[in-house]
């Protein structure tokens, strides 16, 4: 149903006619969504969710505020995104307008001395990183890669990634936030709210930041965050990473006295877990991630050969798998991860390497020799430090979701969960890509380690309805298996795509028994009384009201 002309005009007056549209193909470009084809009860298998009623591209926090106030006035729901890759990007239901924040893309401040930067929503991690590296700093990049919004990474969803163990989790890296609340007031949290600069997230008193995001963020349905200050870490490398290589096999050569990539590998998952704990305790490592196993323990070696050789393609997989070299590598790499050591000084790097060697000795592990080859070393350093290749999640089949594994301690992996994840994927192999163990994720999912957050990758063909169905079934089965064990469900992505597009009343009933969603209902009733947020801020139904009515 189109917006009333009065409403359209009001919105047009805010952003200007060139920044609002109802054009059908444009609306469809916003309705098109990765995973839409899996949420069959909503899309019927189509790639399109509901169209927004209109798309607006605001240019300032004042624009955003005016839009939200107009939405409250006219009772129109709004949704918002930064880069639009997240599974929550499409409007959750019909009848909503969508704010595309791409015009709000500035780096407001880089405070080198106190190590933080202030950014707007459409500043992506690659841009911020390029600028802060010039002053010897570096920023967190979520596992979704450097093409995603710094702000959305930290606030919109989960936001973890390979660097969290050293950089700290995004929730902890956030300093002050500027948030346009669901009723249109502008809240600046922490020190910035008192006009004292962006350096402190909390207070005064209880931190209101806690209501802007929790374990997950508002996914576009809980006001609009228009600026965040984010903590940075030291970067002892060059002001600009030198990039070489023929497309797409780019690589970087970094000073050997400060940078080293390793692939620690282990004889068993228990030893793997033991090593992780040792790494936590010895506090070495800048980036630590189970990255390349995303292609499966059976294919990761072949894939690495392909992506580092511009003449190779995926059709080379079968031939590569036949070679003794790849067969040997595949075996050796079965339980490995990617480990980037960055020494703030040469002595620091030397110490870290020595510690790693001892850990490997202790656990019977080894470093994969492949990563010592200069081209591979340089590729891995680039991959992990810039996270510039992360659309690689879709390389194999064009479609990807996750299943089974989730946030857990390293010992969980040793307890059989890696094998269980692999077995689950194998069950559906054929209709999903047959790759083996694909449990990918950070070695340390919090600052200093403690828990990890792994997800079993599922590669499916979005164009093939049987493959799509298999992926969905695999994700659901993963959740069921976890529930039986009393463990939290993995498969966040499909679950999120489904729940964000679910009928909100049915969803609210399902969530009614969860204490947190009851609190969230109260928060929503208080802070979004006109219920104009898109619906991605979840709530549980008030059963007492329902029973009495």
């Amino acid at each position, binding site marked *: 149903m189109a917006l009333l002309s009065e409403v359209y005009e009001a919105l047009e007056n805010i952003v200007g006619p060139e920044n609002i549209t109802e054009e059908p193909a444009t609306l469809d470009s916003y309705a098109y969504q990765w995973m839409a084809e899996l949420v069959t009860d909503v899309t019927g298998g189509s790639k399109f969710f509901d169209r927004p009623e209109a798309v607006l591209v605001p240019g300032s926090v004042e624009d955003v505020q005016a839009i939200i106030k107009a939405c409250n006035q006219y009772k129109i729901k709004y949704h918002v995104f930064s880069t639009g890759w997240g599974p929550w990007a499409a409007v959750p239901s019909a009848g909503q307008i969508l704010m595309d924040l791409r015009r709000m893309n500035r780096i407001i401040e880089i405070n080198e001395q106190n190590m933080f930067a202030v950014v707007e929503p459409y500043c992506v991690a690659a841009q911020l990183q390029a600028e802060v590296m010039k002053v010897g700093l570096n920023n967190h990049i979520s596992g979704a890669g450097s093409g995603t919004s710094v702000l959305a990474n930290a606030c919109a969803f989960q936001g973890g990634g390979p660097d969290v163990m050293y950089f700290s989790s995004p929730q902890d890296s956030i300093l002050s936030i500027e948030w346009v609340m669901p009723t249109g007031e502008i809240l600046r949290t922490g020190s910035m709210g008192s006009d004292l600069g962006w350096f402190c997230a909390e207070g005064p008193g209880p931190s209101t930041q806690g209501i802007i995001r929790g374990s997950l963020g508002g996914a576009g349905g809980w006001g609009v965050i228009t600026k965040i200050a984010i903590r940075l870490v030291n970067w002892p490398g060059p002001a600009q990473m030198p990039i070489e290589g023929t497309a797409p096999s780019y690589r970087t050569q970094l000073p050997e006295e400060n940078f080293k990539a390793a692939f620690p590998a282990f004889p068993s998952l228990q030893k793997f877990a033991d090593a992780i704990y040792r790494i936590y305790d010895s506090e070495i490592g800048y980036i630590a991630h189970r990255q390349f196993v995303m292609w499966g323990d059976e294919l990761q070696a072949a894939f690495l050969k392909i992506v580092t050789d511009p003449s190779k393609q995926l059709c080379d997989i079968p031939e590569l798998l036949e070679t003794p070299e790849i067969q040997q590598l595949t075996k050796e790499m079965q339980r490995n991860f990617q480990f980037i050591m960055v020494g703030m000084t040469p002595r620091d790097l030397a110490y870290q390497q*020595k510690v790693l060697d001892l850990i490997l000795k202790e656990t019977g592990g080894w470093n994969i020799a492949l990563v010592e080859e200069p081209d591979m070393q340089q590729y891995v350093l680039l991959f992990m430090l810039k996270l510039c290749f992360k659309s690689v999640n879709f390389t194999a089949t064009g479609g990807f979701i996750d299943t089974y594994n989730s946030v857990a301690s390293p*010992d969980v992996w040793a307890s059989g969960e890696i094998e269980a994840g692999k077995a689950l994927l194998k069950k559906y192999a054929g209709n999903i890509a047959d790759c083996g163990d694909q449990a990918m994720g950070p070695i340390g999912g919090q600052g200093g380690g403690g828990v990890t957050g792994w997800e079993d990758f599922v590669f499916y063909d979005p164009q093939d309805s049987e493959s799509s169905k298999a992926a969905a079934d695999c994700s659901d089965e993963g959740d069921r298996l976890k529930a039986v064990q009393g463990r939290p469900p993995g498969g966040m992505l499909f679950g999120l795509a489904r729940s964000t597009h679910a009928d909100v009343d049915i969803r609210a009933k399902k969530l009614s028994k969860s204490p947190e969603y009851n609190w969230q209902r109260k928060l929503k009733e208080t802070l979004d009384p006109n219920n104009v947020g898109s619906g991605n801020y979840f709530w549980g139904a008030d059963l007492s009201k329902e029973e009495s009515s």
Partner: protein
Amino acid sequence: MAEKKDALIKIVGAENVIDDPVTLDVYSMDHSFVTPMMPLMVVNPGNADEVQGIVKWANQTKTPLVPVSSGQPHFRGDSVPSSEGAVIVDLSGMKRIIMMDRRNRVAIVEPGVTYSELQPALAKEGLRLSMPLMPRASKSVLGSVLEREPITNPRYAWSLNEPLRCIETVMGNGEMFRTGELAGGGVSTSAREEAKLVPIEELMEKRKLTQETALYQYGPGQFNYHKLVSAAQGTMGIVTWASLRCEVLPKVQKFLLVTSDELDKIIGFAYKLLRIRFHDELMILSCSSLAAILGEGPEQISSLKKELPPWTLVLGLTGRDILAEERVEFMEKDIADIAQQFNLRLELEIPGATGEQVGDAVLNPAKELYWKLKNKGGCQDIFFLTTLNKVPEFIKTMNSLAESSNYSLSDIGVYIQPTHMGTSCHLEFSLPYDPGNEKELTMVKDLFTRVSDELSKQGAFYTRPYGIWADMAYSRNAEHMNLSKKLKGIFDPNNVLNPGKLCF
């Protein structure tokens, strides 16, 4: 009154309900300048169920509650009732260390556990908890952590809440709630069928199978509840246990001292160390602060003040597990190189102090008499968050105001604690005084108020807004205040938890 007493006795037992005037008098005031107010009663719950019972009762009877975790003495004013007829909920008797896990480096404690009790217990497990500077012997670990007291090792301050992880809390409306990984059911947004809270012991048994670590503190859902009760002065919920991230107990510890007359130099040096995380404990102390820490009494403190340099950077270097000595060794070498760039030196000993002595003090809770009271019997602290580079400006203002009040500059203690991985800095001024001297008391009271006000105008961020700081802090951020009130209205709709504090 009798009715209320009976009701509380039913919840906690007669021996845990106290209303004798002597006891009440103790709780009616503290070392701060807040207006004293007699509570109605003091109750000592023994477990979370009793706490919940008390809160539910308070809601029914509209009785204000003032949660207190630490033992006496108190300093901030937050444990003194602001409303008449308040009941003190003294949690200091809930002393269980519920769990300690070396592998996952986590412990779960009840509110009454003090640092003096916890650290030795953790040490037996090969662990240690990051601590603020010399908490008093009766200081509750939970109380300190919830109030966002800065820890002495900025490297472990991943957030200002560290080392806090998961909590169990009784909200102001009487609902029990758990956060993070121990909420049960994980971190996704999918529904959970059961919202039952199994007893923590059962949960710990269960987690041996499910291998939850009690470390993931976020959520559940889209709200970080642990932030709601932090620096809340007990106004949002009463926390009945918390999981805490622990350090590995050091194998090797070395404390080095770096001194200068020029604070700017030391700050520049500190920034370098913070930048590359080449430090463990790291703080800057003025001569009088260090003297107060090391001196046993007024005479020794006075004598130390003559010996010690104006500014001392205290640097702890730790080797914990693998290659412990090597870590300390290489770091010391690199840090010495950096110090040279600033014309500074790393010393094991300085006039008046050795690194070992300072380390010993910094790494342990204060002994019987709280160290800040050793000098003159009383002390007022003014503290706030800022950034390290702004510290000298605040010191100038402090000194100027002290001079105008005829307060001796050499008595002012300055404690500069970088926090949150070096992004912000806790700055604390201590004003020792003789509380028995009426004139001095009045002068310090006046100075405290003026300094608080002036520093606020200058840019001090009272992120922990005790007493008069609350108005100063909240008046600067109207939206935050409005929102805080709305949150209070949700989580404590009858305003039973410590009414009159913060902006409530």
